[in-house]
């Protein structure tokens, strides 16, 4: 029985390249009787929060999403929460919401509302939350641990946060310098968290388009750091980090012949496996470094 229904914004990557991230996330929450209700109509969030103060146009895309969430929440009536899964969407929509709800920006929100006369006004009461916060605050790590069906105790998993879950600090899902939330997830599925020095180091982000060499170098550093700390795999919540960490390993191994590949997982895939969902849901065939063997070798069933 569904106890809680929450408005949910998927974003583009989860509907194209990384459907496995979304599918596992939805099924995992369903186990705990929480349903993610996708916004009936949505658009790209813009992927990066606009840092310039002189161009309100850049706030329009996330503002539209917030309006859609506000209207959907009036229908489903559980809360004023909007859940996001992709770290980039989370960061962009949450930072925009902070701008639009700040008292000193009253004139900005008035301008935006007046400009978007095809939409109802944004009333400023949507609360943007990342999926991880829903797990922590509405499910609880203990509850996850109670429902674990597969033994993952031999797995050593490194949590990789990247940037946008933690910074800037006003949108951080946890302590920006010493986060624990992903380690808690790893512990709750029964695996061993391996904290490594570069857990929150930027992977190079969109430099992957203009300067892939830089990203390859960063990825090499990050992955080596995790492996030297003993990790068998790394979990993340950002599709861009995922692309860089996973697919760019192809080029890392071309550049560094001694480099051995390491599987990258979305944290929801790890949860799905631990919670006993069908492994095919994870669509590991879409990964560049296939994590399947990791689970076959280690699973003590």
């Amino acid at each position, binding site marked *: 029985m569904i106890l809680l229904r929450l408005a949910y914004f998927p974003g583009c990557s989860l509907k194209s390249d990384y459907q496995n991230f979304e599918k596992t996330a939805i099924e995992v929450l369903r186990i705990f009787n929480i349903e993610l209700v996708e916004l009936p109509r949505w658009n790209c969030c813009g992927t990066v929060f606009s*840092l310039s103060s002189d161009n309100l146009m850049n706030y329009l895309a996330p503002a539209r999403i917030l309006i859609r969430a506000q209207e959907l929440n009036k229908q489903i009536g559980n809360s004023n929460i909007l859940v996001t899964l992709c770290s980039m969407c989370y960061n962009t929509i949450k930072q925009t919401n902070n701008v639009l709800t700040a008292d000193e920006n009253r004139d900005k929100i008035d301008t935006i509302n007046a400009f978007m006369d095809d939409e109802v006004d944004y009333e400023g009461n949507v609360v943007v939350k990342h999926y991880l916060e829903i797990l922590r605050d509405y499910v609880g790590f203990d509850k996850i641990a109670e429902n674990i069906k597969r033994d993952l105790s031999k797995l050593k998993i490194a949590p990789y946060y990247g940037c946008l879950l933690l910074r800037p600090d006003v949108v951080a899902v946890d302590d920006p310098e010493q986060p624990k939330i992903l380690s808690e997830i790893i512990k709750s599925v029964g695996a061993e968290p391996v904290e490594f020095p570069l857990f929150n180091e*930027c992977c190079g982000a969109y430099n992957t388009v203009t300067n892939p060499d830089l990203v390859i170098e960063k990825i090499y550093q990050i992955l080596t750091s995790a492996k030297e700390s003993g990790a068998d795999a790394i979990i993340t919540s950002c599709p861009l980090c995922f692309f860089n960490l996973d697919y760019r390993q192809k080029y890392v191994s071309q550049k560094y012949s001694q480099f051995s590949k390491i599987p990258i997982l979305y944290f929801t895939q790890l949860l799905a496996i631990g919670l006993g969902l069908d492994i095919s849901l994870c669509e590991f065939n879409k990964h560049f470094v296939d994590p399947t063997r990791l689970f076959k070798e280690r699973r003590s069933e």
Partner: protein
Amino acid sequence: MIVKFPIKEEYMEFIKKVEDISAQNIFSCYQCGKCSAGCPMISSMDLLPNQVIRMVQFGNKEVLSSKTIWVCATCYTCSIRCPKGIDLAKIMEALRIIALREKKADFLKYSKISSEDIERMPQIALVSASRKFTVW
């Protein structure tokens, strides 16, 4: 004794523009270097982040031709660590915007992206790079 170093009008215009777009006070930086100490991208930068700020404080527009502003990945590490509360990510963004608007040329060359990358990259890679590196 107060010693004043007046900034010439021509330099002031640039400083003012950076401050307007970024909504940050450039002169609150006292060059402690904490931003550069934490920056994950410095190995590919020609100017350290604190040097970028210093050049803006002097109104030196040459900063617009530095590699640094294009390598910054907006990871906000400097922004959360600055003891003076300067949001450096906003200053880097302001410099990119000024450079793009003045040159009227995109930094991102779509023709240079390999077809393999185009096929494999998630949209967020291309959209974010376009937002940061093209004139709009």
